[in-house]
């Protein structure tokens, strides 16, 4: 019969429509605005409505998620100490060349000091590829999870300087617990090997 398959197709859309209400009924209140509900909606079992209602609900980003880079600092006796040694590998490996580093020099001897005195990332050029974090030998630069950074002015806001991209190691441990634990383990092993030797 002509038109039969059109009706069957419409049946599919109807099924999608009804499933939403069935699921609502089945899952009750926890379906919306709860972490569990969001997780259910992004699993392969999801049926019916698929929408995650940003900004009230936010899809959690996975650990490997990368947006913009940031520099990790550690707090030692109330002083910020950047892990970065200004070795320049991130600036070299950066595909669009958006990282600018000025290596600091000792004011007395004039010799280079392993720390950056200026560090810029041009956000309007950065392609979020994650190479800087991947190839940094000191675990000093990491990819951030913060994506809510829309602004009204790019001339002032979109060149991230040292102040803006430095974040504490606790923040890093919070957004990337797996990576952090892995790194700590590697560091401990290294130190253990050192003490044995």
């Amino acid at each position, binding site marked *: 019969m002509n038109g039969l398959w059109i009706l069957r197709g419409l049946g599919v859309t109807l099924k999608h429509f009804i499933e939403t209400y069935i699921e609502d009924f089945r899952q009750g209140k926890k379906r919306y605005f709860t972490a569990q509900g969001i997780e259910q909606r992004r699993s392969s079992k999801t049926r019916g*409505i*698929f*929408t*995650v*209602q*940003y*900004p009230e609900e*936010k*899809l959690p980003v996975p650990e490997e998620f990368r*947006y*913009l880079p940031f520099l990790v600092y550690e707090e030692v006796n109330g002083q910020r100490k950047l892990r970065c040694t200004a070795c320049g590998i991130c600036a070299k490996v950066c*595909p*669009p*060349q*958006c990282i600018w580093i000025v290596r600091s020099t000792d004011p007395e001897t004039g010799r280079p000091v392993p720390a950056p005195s200026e560090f810029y990332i*041009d*956000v*309007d*050029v*950065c*392609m*979020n590829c994650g190479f800087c974090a991947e190839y940094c030998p000191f675990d000093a630069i990491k990819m951030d999870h*913060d*994506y*809510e*950074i*829309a*602004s*009204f*002015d*790019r001339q002032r*806001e*979109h060149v991230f300087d040292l102040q803006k991209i430095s*974040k*504490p190691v*606790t*923040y890093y441990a*919070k957004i990337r617990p797996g990576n952090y634990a892995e790194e700590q383990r590697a560091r401990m092993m290294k130190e253990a090997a050192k003490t044995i030797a």
Partner: protein
Amino acid sequence: MDENELNLRPNQIPEELKGSIAVTTLDRIYNWSRRNSIWPMMFGLACCAIEMIATAASRYDFSRFGMEVMRASPRQADVMIVSGTVTKKMIPQIVRLYNQMAEPKYVIAMGACASGGGPFKEGYNVVPGIDRFIPVDVYIPGCPPTPQALLNGLITLQKKIDSESLKSVRWYQKGKIEPIPIPVLGPDLIDPRQSPLIKELCQSQISNVSPAGTPENLEAHHDNQLD
């Protein structure tokens, strides 16, 4: 600083609105109705357009903000989401589309390319930021911004609309709003507003007086000539 506060940003106020905000009830109604029916133009340039489509699709669904009506015609659109790399070959059309949009109109530069050239900035056919030609209201960094980042940008735009006032908005001011002159494709992209400057600098190159250009630029000219 607490980690939770780390990524919080102070309330931003657009530069042009600073010191001029006086919100009345009428403004509030006016802005409320406008901010909840922003129709984007159905206009995609590159990678970011796919994320824009994803934002329009069921998971992120920007019709929750009254934006579901993507209009293919600039006459019916309120916001132009410049989603992707703006090339020199495309910029005349984009400026024309912008001119054809009716006031009030907004522009969102989505992603690094539209904001400032992005990873392709060094290329010969890329415009380093759409704001060289048309005024931009909200910039969204990222390459590409995830759908949630785009939604965040759209909410930022809503905030901007909220802070506008009937008394000062440009489309109720006296006088005509001049359209933006449309760029011309010459040996390179010609911005008509720069024509006198181009003429002057090119003339000065003939007479071998060093212009303000860098040596590389001069070399590039030389090479072009050889071809």
